[in-house]
């Protein structure tokens, strides 16, 4: 099959690439444009390692055809920078600071997802962040540091916007304060006694 020359808007620049129309977006970005931050993981849209930002929203590039991406704004980790000083973004700094990286394979996907989450300018709680990153799998970190890093990145953004936001301490049920433990116990007892007033 002959290749077609198309224009993709990647990381703020128009790039002309020769593509086979059967190619998926990650193949074009990795092989033609050498943007190797994008990782090939499961290839069925489950792991999120191949995430790219398309018009500001995370999409699995393994099940997205390159031809569909024409005219859309594509961003990969290579294109991230702090607009004010050209440094790496707050999200990336926090991933480093909070040790949210182990083997690093899932990290580019997580960072792009975090950029999308922070860019929404909403004061997401820990549990909301956990829900928002369900499309990305990490087999090393256990997610705790990743969620903490995203929370701190949101905090930086909220400070800039002047919106009050508190970073919640990362906890398991074992190290909750005593009053929290009592509340949980009460809930369990209410459930056992079939107390219908509590839902």
């Amino acid at each position: 099959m002959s290749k077609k020359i198309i224009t993709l808007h990647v990381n703020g620049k128009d790039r002309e690439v020769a593509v086979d129309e059967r190619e998926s977006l990650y193949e074009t970005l990795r092989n033609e444009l050498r943007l190797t931050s994008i990782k090939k993981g499961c290839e069925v849209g489950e792991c999120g390692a191949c995430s790219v930002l398309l018009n500001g929203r995370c999409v699995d590039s393994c099940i997205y055809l390159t031809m569909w991406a024409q005219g859309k704004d594509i961003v990969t980790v290579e294109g991230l920078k702090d607009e004010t000083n050209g440094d790496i973004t707050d999200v990336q700094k926090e991933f480093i600071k909070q040790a949210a990286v182990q083997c690093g394979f899932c990290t580019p996907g997580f960072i792009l997802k975090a950029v999308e989450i922070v860019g929404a300018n909403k004061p997401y709680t820990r549990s909301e962040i956990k829900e928002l990153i369900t499309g990305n799998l990490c087999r090393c970190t256990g997610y705790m540091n990743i969620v903490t890093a995203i929370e701190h990145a949101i905090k930086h953004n909220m400070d800039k916007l002047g919106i009050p936001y508190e970073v919640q301490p990362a906890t398991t049920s074992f190290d909750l304060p005593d009053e929290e433990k009592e509340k949980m116990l009460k809930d369990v007892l209410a459930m056992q006694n079939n107390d219908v007033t509590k839902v």
Partner: protein
Amino acid sequence: MFDISFLYEAKDVKDAIKKLTENENSEIVSGGTDVLIRVREGKDAGMGLVSIHNIDELKGIKQDSNGNIIIGAGTCFYNINHNEIIQKHIPSLGEAVNTVGGPQIRQTGTIGGNICNGATSADSASTMTALEADIVLEGPNGERIVNIKDFYTGPGKTVRDRCEVCKCFVIKKENFENYFGYYFKYGKRKSLEIATLGCSVLVKLNSSKDTIDDVKIAYGVAAPTPSRAPSAEAFAKGKKLTENFLEEFGEKALSDMKPRDSWRASKEFREQLIKEMAKRSLVNSIRRAGGKIEYYV
């Protein structure tokens, strides 16, 4: 690289139908989150793909002059869940599509593909069945409207011809007005999971919020196609909320269903789920409608 014989980017619906009719070994691709995976697995390898991905007329949600809600088939799950009309009138549909795959899948996957795949496990299918949605199809012989109850013919099979394009879904005003719904998805994981069983309930209470005026309950994966439980619906109609009817409601729902063994779950487990999910979904819907009912969920 996907093993496809060609990719054709259709300009509009008519163009897509023309291309599909000309090439026998071709199929529609919209979001691609199912079709491209089937191609990759080899099931649809060698097929030609006619893409309706970038056709704007298939996208968006609007309300017509009669108050009916029209959902474009090419609308992605994220846009359905975040749409004002859906959030205001049928939030349970928004919740249902918010359980599909993961956030990335929901950016590209479309409701048209979810329904037209014919899968009984499709997360939008049970809610759309409860809402009695009309499906607008356009083919070489013009447009036709099929109600969702006549749409499914078997597992993965629908009445849609290969050359027909699903344009939109029409949800009539009388099917959502004053109804409050709940979608219950049971899966082994909270995300990126295909439903072991899905249950969608819509309930309408009387004005004093103490009697059930109408109930619609539809299941996914409880039978070869998404299907409603008519005897459970008839049983619950007119019941006072103070009556003890939940157990029997679950039993009636089970009697309407034909669950099967699969690698995801056994028949017996599905039967237990059908009963329990009927009760819990109904209770949650009643509470959303403003009714008070004694049951710990």
